[in-house]
Protein backbone atom coordinates (compact mmCIF):
# COMPACT_ATOMS: atom_id res chain seq x y z
CA UNK A 1 0.00 0.00 0.00
CA UNK A 2 1.96 3.01 -1.27
CA UNK A 3 0.01 5.36 0.99
CA UNK A 4 1.81 3.83 3.97
CA UNK A 5 4.93 2.42 2.28
CA UNK A 6 5.84 5.82 0.80
CA UNK A 7 4.61 7.86 3.75
CA UNK A 8 8.01 8.85 5.13
CA UNK A 9 9.41 10.05 1.81
CA UNK A 10 6.31 11.70 0.37
CA UNK A 11 4.31 13.22 3.22
CA UNK A 12 6.15 16.54 3.10
CA UNK A 13 5.76 17.03 -0.64
CA UNK A 14 2.11 15.94 -0.48
CA UNK A 15 1.32 18.43 2.28
CA UNK A 16 3.41 21.18 0.66
CA UNK A 17 1.77 20.95 -2.75
CA UNK A 18 -1.70 20.45 -1.30
CA UNK A 19 -1.37 23.60 0.80
CA UNK A 20 -0.13 25.58 -2.19
CA UNK A 21 -2.74 24.28 -4.64
CA UNK A 22 -5.65 24.34 -2.21
CA UNK A 23 -4.56 27.78 -1.05
CA UNK A 24 -4.68 29.01 -4.63
CA UNK A 25 -8.06 27.32 -5.14
CA UNK A 26 -9.39 28.92 -1.96
CA UNK A 27 -8.17 32.44 -2.71
CA UNK A 28 -8.73 32.54 -6.48
CA UNK A 29 -11.82 30.37 -6.85
CA UNK A 30 -13.41 30.29 -3.40
CA UNK A 31 -12.91 33.94 -2.51
CA UNK A 32 -12.47 35.43 -5.98
CA UNK A 33 -14.87 33.71 -8.33
CA UNK A 34 -17.58 32.04 -6.25
CA UNK A 35 -18.78 35.28 -4.57
CA UNK A 36 -19.04 36.97 -7.98
CA UNK A 37 -21.10 34.11 -9.34
CA UNK A 38 -23.33 34.26 -6.27
CA UNK A 39 -23.55 38.01 -6.63
CA UNK A 40 -24.77 37.56 -10.20
CA UNK A 41 -27.41 35.16 -8.96
CA UNK A 42 -28.34 37.61 -6.24
CA UNK A 43 -28.60 40.46 -8.76
CA UNK A 44 -30.82 38.34 -10.97
CA UNK A 45 -33.04 37.39 -8.06
CA UNK A 46 -33.18 41.05 -7.05
CA UNK A 47 -34.10 42.08 -10.59
CA UNK A 48 -36.83 39.46 -10.74
CA UNK A 49 -38.15 40.53 -7.34
CA UNK A 50 -38.10 44.20 -8.40
CA UNK A 51 -39.87 43.44 -11.67
CA UNK A 52 -42.48 41.42 -9.84
CA UNK A 53 -42.97 44.22 -7.32
CA UNK A 54 -43.31 46.77 -10.14
CA UNK A 55 -45.84 44.55 -11.91
CA UNK A 56 -47.75 44.13 -8.67
CA UNK A 57 -47.83 47.87 -7.98
CA UNK A 58 -48.98 48.56 -11.56
CA UNK A 59 -51.67 45.99 -11.13
CA UNK A 60 -52.72 47.55 -7.83
CA UNK A 61 -52.85 50.99 -9.48
CA UNK A 62 -54.96 49.59 -12.32
CA UNK A 63 -57.28 47.94 -9.80
CA UNK A 64 -57.56 51.21 -7.92
CA UNK A 65 -58.40 53.13 -11.08
CA UNK A 66 -60.90 50.55 -12.09
CA UNK A 67 -62.54 50.79 -8.67
CA UNK A 68 -62.64 54.60 -8.96
CA UNK A 69 -64.12 54.38 -12.45
CA UNK A 70 -66.66 51.88 -11.23
CA UNK A 71 -67.66 54.17 -8.35
CA UNK A 72 -68.01 57.09 -10.76
CA UNK A 73 -69.96 54.97 -13.17
CA UNK A 74 -72.24 53.79 -10.42
CA UNK A 75 -72.83 57.36 -9.25
CA UNK A 76 -73.65 58.46 -12.81
CA UNK A 77 -76.00 55.55 -13.27
CA UNK A 78 -77.74 56.33 -9.98
CA UNK A 79 -78.09 60.00 -10.97
CA UNK A 80 -79.56 59.05 -14.34
CA UNK A 81 -81.96 56.65 -12.72
CA UNK A 82 -83.04 59.32 -10.24
CA UNK A 83 -83.70 61.69 -13.15
CA UNK A 84 -85.74 59.07 -14.96
CA UNK A 85 -87.71 58.28 -11.81
CA UNK A 86 -88.40 61.95 -11.22
CA UNK A 87 -89.63 62.47 -14.76
CA UNK A 88 -91.75 59.36 -14.49
CA UNK A 89 -93.29 60.55 -11.22
CA UNK A 90 -93.96 63.98 -12.65
CA UNK A 91 -95.67 62.66 -15.72
CA UNK A 92 -97.64 60.19 -13.60
CA UNK A 93 -98.91 63.00 -11.39
CA UNK A 94 -99.87 65.09 -14.42
CA UNK A 95 -101.71 62.18 -16.00
CA UNK A 96 -103.54 61.47 -12.78
CA UNK A 97 -104.66 65.07 -12.49
CA UNK A 98 -105.96 65.10 -16.06
CA UNK A 99 -107.70 61.78 -15.52
CA UNK A 100 -109.37 63.11 -12.38
CA UNK A 101 -110.59 66.17 -14.25
CA UNK A 102 -111.97 64.07 -17.08
CA UNK A 103 -113.59 61.74 -14.57
CA UNK A 104 -115.40 64.65 -12.92
CA UNK A 105 -116.65 65.77 -16.34
CA UNK A 106 -117.74 62.25 -17.23
CA UNK A 107 -119.48 61.87 -13.87
CA UNK A 108 -121.39 65.11 -14.41
CA UNK A 109 -122.45 64.05 -17.89
CA UNK A 110 -123.51 60.63 -16.61
CA UNK A 111 -125.60 62.08 -13.78
CA UNK A 112 -127.24 64.49 -16.20
CA UNK A 113 -128.00 61.72 -18.65
CA UNK A 114 -129.32 59.46 -15.90
CA UNK A 115 -131.61 62.24 -14.73
CA UNK A 116 -132.87 62.72 -18.24
CA UNK A 117 -133.43 59.01 -18.67
CA UNK A 118 -135.37 58.91 -15.33
CA UNK A 119 -137.58 61.84 -16.42
CA UNK A 120 -138.24 60.24 -19.79
CA UNK A 121 -139.12 56.94 -18.12
CA UNK A 122 -141.61 58.60 -15.74
CA UNK A 123 -143.16 60.51 -18.59
CA UNK A 124 -143.45 57.37 -20.67
CA UNK A 125 -145.05 55.47 -17.77
CA UNK A 126 -147.62 58.24 -17.29
CA UNK A 127 -148.41 58.19 -20.97
CA UNK A 128 -148.79 54.40 -20.97
CA UNK A 129 -151.34 54.70 -18.10
CA UNK A 130 -153.41 57.27 -19.87
CA UNK A 131 -153.28 55.30 -23.11
CA UNK A 132 -154.17 52.08 -21.25
CA UNK A 133 -157.08 53.87 -19.47
CA UNK A 134 -158.46 55.12 -22.75
CA UNK A 135 -158.01 51.70 -24.32
CA UNK A 136 -159.75 50.03 -21.35
CA UNK A 137 -162.67 52.56 -21.61
CA UNK A 138 -162.94 51.86 -25.29
CA UNK A 139 -162.80 48.05 -24.86
CA UNK A 140 -165.45 48.06 -22.14
CA UNK A 141 -167.75 50.34 -24.24
CA UNK A 142 -167.47 48.10 -27.22
CA UNK A 143 -167.74 44.75 -25.48
CA UNK A 144 -170.26 45.54 -22.73
CA UNK A 145 -171.78 48.68 -24.14
CA UNK A 146 -171.26 50.28 -20.78
CA UNK A 147 -170.08 53.78 -20.57
CA UNK A 148 -167.27 53.94 -18.05
CA UNK A 149 -165.98 57.19 -16.80
CA UNK A 150 -162.49 58.14 -17.48
CA UNK A 151 -161.67 58.29 -13.82
CA UNK A 152 -162.95 54.76 -13.11
CA UNK A 153 -160.97 53.36 -16.04
CA UNK A 154 -157.85 55.09 -14.88
CA UNK A 155 -158.31 53.71 -11.36
CA UNK A 156 -158.80 50.18 -12.71
CA UNK A 157 -155.69 50.44 -14.90
CA UNK A 158 -153.68 51.75 -11.97
CA UNK A 159 -154.91 48.81 -9.87
CA UNK A 160 -154.04 46.26 -12.58
CA UNK A 161 -150.62 47.78 -13.21
CA UNK A 162 -149.89 47.81 -9.49
CA UNK A 163 -150.71 44.04 -9.42
CA UNK A 164 -148.31 43.61 -12.38
Amino acid at each position, binding site marked *: *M*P*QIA*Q*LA*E*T*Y*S*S*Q*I*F*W*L*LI*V*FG*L*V*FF*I*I*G*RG*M*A*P*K*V*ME*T*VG*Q*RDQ*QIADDLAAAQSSRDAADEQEAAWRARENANRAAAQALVAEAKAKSATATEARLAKAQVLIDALTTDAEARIGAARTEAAAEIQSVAAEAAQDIVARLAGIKVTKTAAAAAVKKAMAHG
Partner: protein
Amino acid sequence: MVGEPAKVDPMHQFTIEPLFGSAGWEVAGFNIAFTNSALWMVITAVVLWLFMLGGMKRQLVPGRWQMAVEFFTGFIDSLVEANVGAAGKKYVPYIFSLFMFILFANVLGLMPLGIVGIHPFTFTSHFTITGVLAIMSFSIVLVVGFWKHKLHFFSLFIPSGTPLAMAIIIFPIELVSFLFRPFSLGLRLFVAMMAGHVLLEVLSSFVIDGWNAGAGFGLLVGVPSFLLMVAICALEILVAGIQAYVFALLTSLYINDAEHLH
Protein backbone atom coordinates in the same frame (compact mmCIF):
# COMPACT_ATOMS: atom_id res chain seq x y z
CA MET B 1 4.52 -10.72 -23.17
CA VAL B 2 4.76 -14.27 -24.49
CA GLY B 3 5.41 -16.75 -21.74
CA GLU B 4 5.31 -14.06 -19.07
CA PRO B 5 2.02 -13.87 -17.13
CA ALA B 6 0.41 -10.43 -17.17
CA LYS B 7 0.68 -8.93 -13.74
CA VAL B 8 -1.75 -6.36 -12.45
CA ASP B 9 -0.87 -4.77 -9.16
CA PRO B 10 -4.02 -3.04 -7.88
CA MET B 11 -1.99 -0.87 -5.53
CA HIS B 12 0.44 0.39 -8.13
CA GLN B 13 -1.94 3.16 -9.17
CA PHE B 14 -1.41 4.85 -5.82
CA THR B 15 2.36 5.04 -6.16
CA ILE B 16 3.78 8.52 -5.94
CA GLU B 17 6.57 9.32 -8.36
CA PRO B 18 8.58 12.52 -8.57
CA LEU B 19 8.32 14.15 -12.00
CA PHE B 20 10.65 16.27 -14.09
CA GLY B 21 13.67 15.25 -11.99
CA SER B 22 12.33 17.05 -8.97
CA ALA B 23 13.03 14.17 -6.59
CA GLY B 24 15.71 16.10 -4.77
CA TRP B 25 13.82 19.34 -4.19
CA GLU B 26 13.98 20.27 -0.56
CA VAL B 27 12.93 23.10 1.69
CA ALA B 28 14.39 23.21 5.20
CA GLY B 29 15.21 19.54 5.00
CA PHE B 30 11.75 18.52 3.83
CA ASN B 31 11.33 16.92 0.44
CA ILE B 32 8.96 18.87 -1.80
CA ALA B 33 9.33 16.90 -5.02
CA PHE B 34 6.76 17.80 -7.69
CA THR B 35 5.11 14.40 -7.91
CA ASN B 36 2.34 12.96 -10.06
CA SER B 37 0.09 13.65 -7.08
CA ALA B 38 1.07 17.33 -7.12
CA LEU B 39 0.61 17.41 -10.90
CA TRP B 40 -2.96 16.17 -10.59
CA MET B 41 -3.66 18.69 -7.84
CA VAL B 42 -2.57 21.39 -10.27
CA ILE B 43 -4.60 19.84 -13.09
CA THR B 44 -7.65 19.68 -10.78
CA ALA B 45 -7.20 23.31 -9.81
CA VAL B 46 -6.82 24.39 -13.45
CA VAL B 47 -9.84 22.40 -14.63
CA LEU B 48 -11.86 23.82 -11.74
CA TRP B 49 -10.66 27.32 -12.64
CA LEU B 50 -11.67 26.81 -16.28
CA PHE B 51 -15.05 25.52 -15.16
CA MET B 52 -15.57 28.55 -12.93
CA LEU B 53 -14.45 30.86 -15.73
CA GLY B 54 -17.56 29.79 -17.66
CA GLY B 55 -19.66 31.09 -14.78
CA MET B 56 -18.03 34.53 -14.79
CA LYS B 57 -19.93 35.83 -17.83
CA ARG B 58 -22.38 37.34 -15.37
CA GLN B 59 -25.23 37.41 -17.86
CA LEU B 60 -28.68 38.29 -16.68
CA VAL B 61 -30.06 35.33 -18.61
CA PRO B 62 -27.46 32.62 -18.02
CA GLY B 63 -26.25 30.16 -20.63
CA ARG B 64 -25.87 26.46 -19.90
CA TRP B 65 -22.35 26.69 -18.55
CA GLN B 66 -23.14 29.67 -16.36
CA MET B 67 -26.21 27.80 -15.12
CA ALA B 68 -24.00 24.82 -14.19
CA VAL B 69 -21.58 27.01 -12.22
CA GLU B 70 -24.45 28.84 -10.54
CA PHE B 71 -26.00 25.49 -9.65
CA PHE B 72 -22.87 24.53 -7.71
CA THR B 73 -22.50 27.86 -5.91
CA GLY B 74 -26.21 27.84 -5.11
CA PHE B 75 -25.96 24.23 -3.91
CA ILE B 76 -23.15 24.99 -1.44
CA ASP B 77 -24.75 28.27 -0.45
CA SER B 78 -28.01 26.57 0.47
CA LEU B 79 -26.13 23.70 2.18
CA VAL B 80 -24.29 26.13 4.44
CA GLU B 81 -27.41 28.23 4.93
CA ALA B 82 -29.39 25.15 6.00
CA ASN B 83 -26.73 23.82 8.38
CA VAL B 84 -25.09 26.90 9.86
CA GLY B 85 -27.68 29.58 9.20
CA ALA B 86 -27.00 33.22 8.45
CA ALA B 87 -23.70 33.10 10.34
CA GLY B 88 -22.42 30.56 7.81
CA LYS B 89 -22.17 33.06 4.96
CA LYS B 90 -18.49 33.68 5.66
CA TYR B 91 -17.64 29.98 5.39
CA VAL B 92 -19.13 29.58 1.91
CA PRO B 93 -15.84 30.31 0.08
CA TYR B 94 -14.00 27.67 2.12
CA ILE B 95 -16.68 25.00 1.87
CA PHE B 96 -17.19 25.75 -1.81
CA SER B 97 -13.44 25.39 -2.48
CA LEU B 98 -13.35 22.19 -0.46
CA PHE B 99 -16.35 20.65 -2.18
CA MET B 100 -15.36 21.57 -5.72
CA PHE B 101 -11.69 20.62 -5.22
CA ILE B 102 -12.58 17.18 -3.85
CA LEU B 103 -15.36 16.65 -6.41
CA PHE B 104 -13.15 17.55 -9.37
CA ALA B 105 -10.26 15.48 -7.97
CA ASN B 106 -12.50 12.43 -7.50
CA VAL B 107 -14.10 12.72 -10.92
CA LEU B 108 -10.84 13.47 -12.75
CA GLY B 109 -9.32 10.39 -11.09
CA LEU B 110 -12.07 8.29 -12.68
CA MET B 111 -11.59 9.66 -16.19
CA PRO B 112 -10.64 6.91 -18.66
CA LEU B 113 -7.64 8.92 -19.84
CA GLY B 114 -5.48 5.78 -19.69
CA ILE B 115 -6.76 5.06 -23.20
CA VAL B 116 -4.72 8.00 -24.50
CA GLY B 117 -1.77 7.15 -22.29
CA ILE B 118 -2.42 9.62 -19.48
CA HIS B 119 -2.94 7.84 -16.21
CA PRO B 120 -5.00 9.94 -13.79
CA PHE B 121 -3.83 10.00 -10.22
CA THR B 122 -6.55 10.26 -7.59
CA PHE B 123 -4.81 12.23 -4.87
CA THR B 124 -7.91 12.00 -2.64
CA SER B 125 -7.03 8.30 -2.23
CA HIS B 126 -4.07 9.35 -0.06
CA PHE B 127 -4.69 9.97 3.60
CA THR B 128 -1.89 12.51 3.67
CA ILE B 129 -4.15 14.66 1.46
CA THR B 130 -7.53 13.90 3.01
CA GLY B 131 -5.95 14.16 6.46
CA VAL B 132 -4.66 17.66 5.76
CA LEU B 133 -8.06 18.71 4.42
CA ALA B 134 -9.76 17.22 7.50
CA ILE B 135 -7.29 18.91 9.84
CA MET B 136 -7.97 22.24 8.09
CA SER B 137 -11.72 21.83 8.64
CA PHE B 138 -11.16 20.74 12.24
CA SER B 139 -8.81 23.66 12.89
CA ILE B 140 -11.44 26.07 11.67
CA VAL B 141 -13.91 24.47 14.09
CA LEU B 142 -11.46 24.79 16.99
CA VAL B 143 -10.41 28.35 16.17
CA VAL B 144 -13.96 29.57 15.64
CA GLY B 145 -15.22 27.69 18.69
CA PHE B 146 -12.61 29.02 21.11
CA TRP B 147 -12.66 32.49 19.52
CA LYS B 148 -16.40 32.88 19.84
CA HIS B 149 -17.10 31.04 23.09
CA LYS B 150 -13.70 31.00 24.86
CA LEU B 151 -13.60 28.16 27.42
CA HIS B 152 -17.37 27.96 27.29
CA PHE B 153 -16.76 25.94 24.10
CA PHE B 154 -16.23 22.88 26.33
CA SER B 155 -19.94 22.93 27.16
CA LEU B 156 -20.34 21.46 23.66
CA PHE B 157 -19.38 18.14 25.24
CA ILE B 158 -22.17 18.21 27.83
CA PRO B 159 -25.66 18.02 26.37
CA SER B 160 -27.88 20.62 28.00
CA GLY B 161 -29.83 19.41 31.04
CA THR B 162 -27.42 16.61 31.91
CA PRO B 163 -27.20 15.88 35.66
CA LEU B 164 -23.71 16.40 37.13
CA ALA B 165 -23.19 12.69 37.81
CA MET B 166 -23.90 11.90 34.18
CA ALA B 167 -21.88 14.84 32.92
CA ILE B 168 -18.74 13.42 34.48
CA ILE B 169 -19.17 10.28 32.39
CA ILE B 170 -20.49 11.93 29.26
CA PHE B 171 -17.83 14.63 29.03
CA PRO B 172 -14.91 12.31 28.22
CA ILE B 173 -17.07 10.28 25.82
CA GLU B 174 -18.15 13.39 23.94
CA LEU B 175 -14.62 14.75 24.00
CA VAL B 176 -13.20 11.58 22.47
CA SER B 177 -15.91 11.46 19.82
CA PHE B 178 -15.18 15.12 19.06
CA LEU B 179 -11.46 14.46 18.77
CA PHE B 180 -12.12 11.58 16.38
CA ARG B 181 -13.90 13.86 13.92
CA PRO B 182 -10.83 14.79 11.85
CA PHE B 183 -9.84 11.14 11.59
CA SER B 184 -13.27 9.95 10.50
CA LEU B 185 -13.58 12.91 8.15
CA GLY B 186 -10.26 12.25 6.45
CA LEU B 187 -10.39 8.46 6.50
CA ARG B 188 -13.90 8.30 5.04
CA LEU B 189 -12.89 10.05 1.84
CA PHE B 190 -9.55 8.26 1.57
CA VAL B 191 -11.08 4.81 2.11
CA ALA B 192 -14.00 5.38 -0.24
CA MET B 193 -11.77 6.56 -3.07
CA MET B 194 -9.10 3.92 -2.56
CA ALA B 195 -11.59 1.06 -2.25
CA GLY B 196 -13.33 2.00 -5.48
CA HIS B 197 -10.09 2.25 -7.42
CA VAL B 198 -8.75 -1.01 -6.00
CA LEU B 199 -12.01 -2.75 -6.85
CA LEU B 200 -11.89 -1.51 -10.44
CA GLU B 201 -8.26 -2.54 -10.73
CA VAL B 202 -8.93 -6.01 -9.30
CA LEU B 203 -11.85 -6.53 -11.67
CA SER B 204 -9.71 -5.40 -14.60
CA SER B 205 -7.08 -7.93 -13.56
CA PHE B 206 -9.83 -10.60 -13.66
CA VAL B 207 -10.65 -9.53 -17.22
CA ILE B 208 -7.01 -9.63 -18.34
CA ASP B 209 -6.03 -12.82 -16.51
CA GLY B 210 -9.26 -14.50 -17.55
CA TRP B 211 -8.68 -13.92 -21.25
CA ASN B 212 -5.00 -14.82 -20.89
CA ALA B 213 -6.05 -18.15 -19.41
CA GLY B 214 -8.11 -18.96 -22.51
CA ALA B 215 -11.41 -18.17 -24.18
CA GLY B 216 -13.38 -20.34 -21.74
CA PHE B 217 -12.17 -18.42 -18.72
CA GLY B 218 -12.50 -15.23 -20.68
CA LEU B 219 -16.20 -15.82 -21.26
CA LEU B 220 -16.81 -17.24 -17.80
CA VAL B 221 -14.83 -14.71 -15.75
CA GLY B 222 -13.73 -11.90 -18.06
CA VAL B 223 -17.08 -10.88 -19.53
CA PRO B 224 -19.04 -10.80 -16.23
CA SER B 225 -16.16 -8.94 -14.57
CA PHE B 226 -16.14 -6.42 -17.39
CA LEU B 227 -19.90 -5.85 -17.07
CA LEU B 228 -19.47 -5.47 -13.32
CA MET B 229 -16.69 -2.94 -13.95
CA VAL B 230 -18.99 -0.85 -16.11
CA ALA B 231 -21.63 -0.86 -13.39
CA ILE B 232 -19.09 -0.09 -10.68
CA CYS B 233 -17.68 2.79 -12.74
CA ALA B 234 -21.16 4.33 -12.64
CA LEU B 235 -21.29 3.69 -8.90
CA GLU B 236 -17.85 5.27 -8.47
CA ILE B 237 -19.00 8.45 -10.21
CA LEU B 238 -21.84 8.55 -7.68
CA VAL B 239 -19.41 7.88 -4.82
CA ALA B 240 -17.12 10.66 -6.10
CA GLY B 241 -20.00 13.13 -5.79
CA ILE B 242 -21.32 11.75 -2.52
CA GLN B 243 -17.93 11.77 -0.78
CA ALA B 244 -17.30 15.37 -1.78
CA TYR B 245 -20.78 16.24 -0.56
CA VAL B 246 -20.30 14.36 2.72
CA PHE B 247 -17.01 16.13 3.36
CA ALA B 248 -18.58 19.53 2.76
CA LEU B 249 -21.72 18.62 4.73
CA LEU B 250 -19.82 17.35 7.78
CA THR B 251 -17.50 20.35 7.71
CA SER B 252 -20.49 22.67 7.72
CA LEU B 253 -22.12 20.65 10.53
CA TYR B 254 -18.97 20.86 12.64
CA ILE B 255 -18.71 24.59 11.95
CA ASN B 256 -22.33 24.88 13.07
CA ASP B 257 -21.33 23.28 16.39
CA ALA B 258 -18.56 25.83 16.76
CA GLU B 259 -20.83 28.74 15.83
CA HIS B 260 -23.84 27.83 17.93
CA LEU B 261 -22.56 25.20 20.42
CA HIS B 262 -25.90 23.35 20.61
